[in-house]
């Protein structure tokens, strides 16, 4: 999965996938942690539901974009043991490629004069 073309073929990423990759970019998190992180980063606009979250996690694991860490407790949360996930190099690379693609799209839109109005 390290080949550039293989990673390229995963683009464009579904928004939920991108959000999850971004949420894992600075720390290992468990499933619910990812949910909270995404909600926080988007100002509460995007709330992942468990179904979307875990089917996406399963897919990302299969593609080697994230890895599962051993179960441990969340110091902030209740006592339940949680599985943590970490972004792999491929995962980071895919997120970067998607970001580049999105940036290009934004630039494209701007050049066409499609600047969103504020407020």
């Amino acid at each position, binding site marked *: 999965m390290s080949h550039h073309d293989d990673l390229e073929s995963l683009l464009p990423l579904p928004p939920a996938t991108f959000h999850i990759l971004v949420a894992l970019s600075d720390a290992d998190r468990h499933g619910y942690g990812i949910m909270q992180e995404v909600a926080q980063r988007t100002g509460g606009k995007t709330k992942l*539901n468990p179904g979307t979250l*875990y*089917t996406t996690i399963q897919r990302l694991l299969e593609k080697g974009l994230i890895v599962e860490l051993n179960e441990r407790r969340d110091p902030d949360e209740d006592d339940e043991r949680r599985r943590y996930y970490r972004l792999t190099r491929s995962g980071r690379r895919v997120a970067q490629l998607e970001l580049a693609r999105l940036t290009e799209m934004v630039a494209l839109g701007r050049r066409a004069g499609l600047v969103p109005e504020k407020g």
Partner: protein
Amino acid sequence: MRSATTKVPAWADRVYTALLRAYPASFREEYAGEMRAAFRSRWREERRERGLLGVARLWIAVLADTLATAVRSQGEMLARDVRYGWRSLTGRPSWSFTAAALLTLALGIGAVTTIYTVVHTVLLAPLPYRGPDRVVHLRDVNPGLGIEDFSSSMPNFRSWQEARGFSHLTALRIADSNLTDGSEPLKVSGLKVSANFWDMLGMRPVAGRAFLPADDVQGRAPVAMISEGLWRRRYGGDPAAIGRTVDVNLVPHVIIGIAPQDVGFASNIDLWMPLGYDPEADDSRGDHRLIVLGRLAPGVTLQQAQQEMVGLTSRLEQEFPEANKGWSVVVEPIRDFIVADAVAQRLRILLAAVALLLLVAATNVANLQIARAGGRLREIGVRLALGASRARLVRQMLTENLLLATAGGAAGLVLAWAGVRASAAWLPVSLPRRETLAIDLPVLLVAALCIVLTALLTGLLPARLALRSNVQEALQQAGRSTTGGRSPARHALVAAQLALATTLVVGAALLTQSLVRLQKVALGFADPEHLLTTPITRSLTAEDAADRNLDFYHALIEEVRALPGVAAAAVSSEVPFGDQTTEMPVVPAGGSPGVPGESVQANWRIVTADFFRTMQIPLRRGRTFEEGREPWQSMILSEGLARQLWPDGRDPIGREVTLGNRKTFTIVGVVGDVRQLELGKDPTPTMYISTSWIILPTMTLVVRTRTDPAALVQPIRQAVARLDPHQPVSAFQTMRSAVAANAAEPRLNTVLVASFAGLALLLAVVGVAGVVGYSVGQRTRELAVRLALGASRGQAVRHVMSGGLAMCAMGILCGVGAALALGRALASVLFGVDAHDPLTLLGTSAALLAAAALACWLPARRATRISPSLTLREG
């Protein structure tokens, strides 16, 4: 962030857990716990921050999300399993297994689908009526006279009109006629029906109009409807045919409408006319000539209608004891009128047989799968060790089997399509509704169900067996031998297979014997090969035409007799194995005809003098009719009837009998019994009356030939044309083919059941050989030890065979048991052989055991090729 204060209610947790069941089991095993925890956290969060509205929104979001992601997840898994299954089935080591399994399943599912198509068409497919289950047949019965199915009389039919259980009651009478419209005269099958007939069925004419009550009034210009088929054949489907005048038996009729060809109970009727009035029959309560159909009134059940008719008929019995003594009515669904009990039962037997065949086929594939799963233990062990869940593996194997069954089923459907097309030609003409044979949606659904059940049957057991062992065991065993461990399951499957095959073979053996007996039955007349018959309907039916008709037939007989190759010729109102019959009660003079216990219900035939010589029916006593000067009161009895009328054995010659029509006849002769209607039924008591009494509109010409009967068809046609150029002649038939047609349906049924049994047996024997061969392979080492310790090769073979044979004997025993239990279903269609016939059971078991022994012996011989020294050194 700690929030132990808000607790998630237990029901919410339960509902969410239930929702999670939408995901594939393997996904659930992996993530359900985490998902529940995440859900609970979200729930608490929403409750805390947004209250109940937030919780409600969460539920909606979670529901939608679960639905979308679960469907996708299932789809992905299916796609993956299908890809995996495809690779696994088409991979190099498997292709021979796949080919064998596909062929087996294709044959099984193809056969089931073909037979089910026939069963569905005849027994289940809706009839072309409005509310077909409301349409009923009213059949006259007289238990005292032993009459189970008879037609009705016009006065009784009129009395029945007061019954409130029916919204419509209609009468039908057969009216085969000669149609002339300028071109060549045509003999057509016709029916005269009550004016409300089409409304009763809820069918509309294809064009034009149906009958109105005004059409059935005496003195009105006669009208007729013709069938769609005749309309297209004769008039090219021209709408202008409506309004045209055609001659029906020389009487002009105006065509008012085009009738649908298929009316459910018949599809060969080309001419429809109003019921009209028949002065000969319609005023006599004892003259049963009408078929009565009806439609149940809204809200009335069949039982209620039946009850009402029982009350009504018993009242009529008291009112008219002369004609109605002992007569009652059975109201039955029209399907029972269309499909005879025996036909329905034979079809059910056929379906059961083919279902058994599919079971044997599926068992065979299951067995192959187990053998293959043995070879795949290593693969399975590795996958388990790598963390694949068992549920995942079972699902994967089931998908593989579903793939296999679907491919087999698809091939089977192609076979069925060809089978159904071929059936249209093979199916006996006597099978009702054969014209409407088609693979339609219900048939496809049943085929799909077969495919799914087959997949489960072939997949579940092997999957369970493969997964019962734990990881280490699987890997160890796979390391030790690539064919897996001993398999009692395979033995059990083979025994089951043999049991199923035995049941089928016993059934087939019984049916075959029954058929052979049916074919050998004494007909009562000689050499049917050289008897040529053709029905001739005379157009002149008026009272004064009788003499002219008689002259015509006498002249025809003279003409035909003069033809080279003709030994004798006669005409008769009916011939054996024709499709119609006429019956009347008869008693020795002085008794009252029609009184149960006193009189006998007997067939009557109007015949010319030479009839008995032509048919070669032996004369037992007295004389046959004399040509030209026989008194009309003379009668000849079949010997069975004579015995029934005078059980004390008195000589019937010169005695008198009274018939249901109050006429008295004198017995001049007694002839041998003849099977009139069905090979499988006892000869019918029969009265023969001379043509000096009456002559019917339709008489059948019977010609005894010395040469090939086919060569005489044209000369006879020419003889008819010489006498009356306007007289149509319909198809000729030899008596041999009429007799054969009578047994056509049991014959086809037997041939099919026998082929299914043969196939099942073949599959079972292959299964036995496979398992025994496998067991020899497994026990090579043990056998080598036995040989090394001084056992002879014969002993080694016997040792291997004994295990296999015990398994086979068990299977055969179970099969015989099942055959005994199922015998009752077969009994009603068997002729001359008991469903529990010990000789058949013993013979079949012995033959099957011999086949099984052969199947054991062939692979067991391999034991003799074992080299003890080599095997033991290697081990």
